[in-house]
């Protein structure tokens, strides 16, 4: 009896005590990705010195057929080491409008690197600069190996590192007792075998950290044990598998993540830790206490995004999602994506009329698909995640919050998320500054955000409206399924369109869509169609002098037919831009009849002529507003009876506000 009681007690203890690190725990029964890398990291945060001290065991598998004689690593934190780094030179000390605070430098040192059999590689570490000739940049290292890693073989390295976190202005670092820790550990690059993406021979793809660039890494498994002060709330990529009190005022938490290509974590003493469930996903919101009333907006938008992507793209495979609300003073950490963890951004007092919190949440969640699950190279082809994701953000936001109200919903002034996105492109001073298909660090003259995010979303929407949403969804679902947990490139993306569009539309759009992508992705031209003029003239008999019986007879014009007037209507449409897209023209006559004419959009101009008993009322090119890439939609229509009431409305409003403004003069005069 006693032994039974003892056994029951032991069983109870086993059930109650949370599993400690080392307890075998898996998320997926079968690997979802190739799992080329495995990281086991133990790291300790010093909240006084703002430093990290870590031990990393990396296992890398050579999946190529090459003998790999060296390894390359990213040391991202060195971007913040001094003003001579490539990142800081490009950013001039700022990022997304936030300046780095004085003295907030950050860095990372690899203090030891050894192979599993004890060979010390530390002395062989060499900084390299594959993208520029900046010898002060220390964001990439190469490590020559004594013995190459043979095809199919793995190499295990034990790496010790110390890092000083920067004061947050660009994604990662600290602000007071708030920590958002991303790009923080020595991270191996991607070895691309010949034929993979653009590689003609096997090579490391390991770019320096630039102002505009983000990341690229192989999928794998992460086991990370983080030691932080005991009162800190911690969130991280993956799932919590163990927690222990170390008895010295600190605790360690172990997280396990599978089939991801990065690992980030956050810690703060002030977080409110909230959670809700959406189907199989536990949504955790780490909220700043003074903004706790905004948490429901995060939950609502995160659930809406999960629902939307699940329906229109594919299944979110992970069991959890953490939404981080950055601390006041650390807004530079906001609006960033990491596997299963996103940082959003809210502000006290900002009501739901301004949907910034929702937009950021939906956008960053979307990256779980376009970046997280489909792992394109963000350095070289940022549009493949940022642009596609921006497109899906606008779709989801418009569906959930309204196409005219998804960004701003104030009395008398509303704006949809797509409308704001489109402005990002159409409002550019120089829309031709670069093609979208430009490596992120090569947007030297500007336009990275406008072209990579906004123009891509605009051309994707244009394409969707041309080929139809069902076809678009089929294509994007296929692209997602084919390329999840892989590294696709532009060629792979276009190939899916070229495969499916002819299937659904035959040759309506040609044999393939290369002509479309050549213009919008690889070209810099703009699109602008104009309804130039409309007119209807009464058909009359010819007038003037006519030869008749050897004489010149004068003829006066007569109506076309007594009692049945006819009008010649001419609708002139012009192509003002260089981009050529198929469209149509809708002509409405006074009796309400409408005629729609297709136009291939190729010529500089085209006129449509009609002879009918009614005059034209109005005409419109692109009546379905499919070509949202058209930079001026206001010139797409003409009417015989222009609506002047709206003009009066704004004239009257303007008059009123000017009267008010002028009356301010009485305060001094």
């Amino acid at each position: 009896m006693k032994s039974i009681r003892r056994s029951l007690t032991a069983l109870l203890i086993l059930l109650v005590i949370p599993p400690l690190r080392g307890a075998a725990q898996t998320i997926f029964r079968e690997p979802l990705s190739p799992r080329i890398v495995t990281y086991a990291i133990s790291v300790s945060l010093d909240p006084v010195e703002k430093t990290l001290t870590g031990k990393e065991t990396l296992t890398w598998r050579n999946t190529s057929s090459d003998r790999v004689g060296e390894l390359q690593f990213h040391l991202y934190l060195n971007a913040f080491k001094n003003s001579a780094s490539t990142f800081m030179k490009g950013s001039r000390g700022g990022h997304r409008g936030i300046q780095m605070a004085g003295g907030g430098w950050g860095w990372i040192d690899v203090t030891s690197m050894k192979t599993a059999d004890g060979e010390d590689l530390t002395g062989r570490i060499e900084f390299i600069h594959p993208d520029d000739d900046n010898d002060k940049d220390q964001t990439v290292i190469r490590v020559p190996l004594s013995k190459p890693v043979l095809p199919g073989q793995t190499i295990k390295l034990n790496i010790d590192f110390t890092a000083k976190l920067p004061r947050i202005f660009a994604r990662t670092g600290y602000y007071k007792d708030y920590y958002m820790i991303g790009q923080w550990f020595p991270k191996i690059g991607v070895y691309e075998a010949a034929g993979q993406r653009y590689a003609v021979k096997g090579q490391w793809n390991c770019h320096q950290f630039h102002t505009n660039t983000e990341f690229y890494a192989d999928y794998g498994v992460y086991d990370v044990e983080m030691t932080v002060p005991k009162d800190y709330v911690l969130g991280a990529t993956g799932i919590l598998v163990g927690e222990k009190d170390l008895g010295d005022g600190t605790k360690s938490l172990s997280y396990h993540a599978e089939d991801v290509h990065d690992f980030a974590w956050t810690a703060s003493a002030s977080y409110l830790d909230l959670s809700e469930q959406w189907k199989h996903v536990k949504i955790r919101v780490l909220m700043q206490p003074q903004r706790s009333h905004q948490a429901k907006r995060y939950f609502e938008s995160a659930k809406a995004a999960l629902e939307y992507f699940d329906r229109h793209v594919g299944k979110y495979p992970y069991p959890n999602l953490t939404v981080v609300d950055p601390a006041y003073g650390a807004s530079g950490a906001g609006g960033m994506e990491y596997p299963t963890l996103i940082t959003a951004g809210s502000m006290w007092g900002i009501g739901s009329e301004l949907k910034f919190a929702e937009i950021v949440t939906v956008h960053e969640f979307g990256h779980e698909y376009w970046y997280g699950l489909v792992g394109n190279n963000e350095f070289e082809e940022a549009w493949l995640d940022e642009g596609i994701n921006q497109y899906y953000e606008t779709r989801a936001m418009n569906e959930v919050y309204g196409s005219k109200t998804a960004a701003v919903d104030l009395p008398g002034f509303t704006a949809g998320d797509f409308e704001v996105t489109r402005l990002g492109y159409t409002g550019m001073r120089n829309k031709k500054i670069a093609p979208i298909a430009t490596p992120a660090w090569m947007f030297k003259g500007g336009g990275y955000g406008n072209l990579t995010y906004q123009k891509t979303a605009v051309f994707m929407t244009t394409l969707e409206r041309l080929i139809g949403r069902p076809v678009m969804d089929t294509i994007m679902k296929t692209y997602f399924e084919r390329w999840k947990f892989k590294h696709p490139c532009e060629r792979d993306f276009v190939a899916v369109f070229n495969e499916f569009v002819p299937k659904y539309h035959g040759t309506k759009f040609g044999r393939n869509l290369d002509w479309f992508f050549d213009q919008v992705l690889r070209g810099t031209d703009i699109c602008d169609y104009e309804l130039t003029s409309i007119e209807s003239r009464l058909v009359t008999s010819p007038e003037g002098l006519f030869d008749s019986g050897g004489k010149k007879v004068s003829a006066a014009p007569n109506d076309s037919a007594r009692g049945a007037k006819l009008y010649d209507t001419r609708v002139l449409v012009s192509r003002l831009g260089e981009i050529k897209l198929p469209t149509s023209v809708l002509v409405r006559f006074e009796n309400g009849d409408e005629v729609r004419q297709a136009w291939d959009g190729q010529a500089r101009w085209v006129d449509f002529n009609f002879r009918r008993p009614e005059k034209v009322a109005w005409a419109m090119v692109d009546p379905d507003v499919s070509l949202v890439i058209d930079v001026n939609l206001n010139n797409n229509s003409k009417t015989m009876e222009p609506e002047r009431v709206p003009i009066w409305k704004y004239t009257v409003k303007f008059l009123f506000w000017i009267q008010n403004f002028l009356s301010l003069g009485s305060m001094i005069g």
Partner: protein
Amino acid sequence: MSILQAFSTGFRRATSEPKMVFVLYLLNLILAIPLALAFRSVLLTAFGSSMAPAAMMESLDFTVFQDFMNFHYANLQTVLGQVLSVFVLSMIVQTFLAGGILTVLQDQAKYTSADFFKGCGAYFFRFFRLFLLFGLILVLTAVVVAVVVFALAEGLTENASSEVTELWIRLVAFVLFLLPVMLIMMAGDYAKIHMVLHDQRSAFRMCGKGFAFVVRRFLPAIALELLMLLVPVLLFAVYLVLDLSIGMTSGPTIAVMFVIQQLYMMLRAWTRVFFLAGELALYRNLQSRPFAAFDAAPVAPGIDKV
């Protein structure tokens, strides 16, 4: 005389001069109309016979608006440049009108156009010199105060623990910035009043008198100003409610709102007279008493019983 009495005197005097208020309103409208027509011309050029403006009827359609701005911003900028020019002209006109307003108000007589414009002419150059002097003081003070106050606020917000704290710091900074600006504008009004009542000519002396009055009679002067400020604030709140509830979504509602807007502007003109009349009443009363008498008055409930 209590502050409430000065307030009610101002209210009565302004209300009893509808013709003068109408003249002020009319001049404001005359200055604004060419600008509104120029704006209308920009809209007509931009949209021509396009159907796009129809989408702007319900509310400001963001897409139509953004395409308009992308292609016609330069034209709009020209109009906005004209607005600034007319604003300068308007300040000079207001300077001109102030003499007329105070002439009518000081006489306690009914408005006549002849008296009004005679007063405008009589004080124009004197007021214009005051306008230049106070304009300079205002700009210099605003710049200095802005630099100091906002730099201080910036420093304080760096260590703020939340955006709520930051918001309060910035709000306090804004009030601290507004206070001297408001005092200078009040001093400007009292300088004009002194000039008219005592038929003075020196702008510098009157400037000193204006500041002396505001500083010495700070509490009643500021209390009256704040009390009177409630009137335009209330008027604007009423206007906003009407604007939001009526909207401008059809020809008739645009016409209705036009009438309401113009009534509102008449009331704005009325507030100009109201402010000067209230300040004149307070000035007359306080200047007729020795300064010590005010100082001796009880502070808390007696602020309005000087």
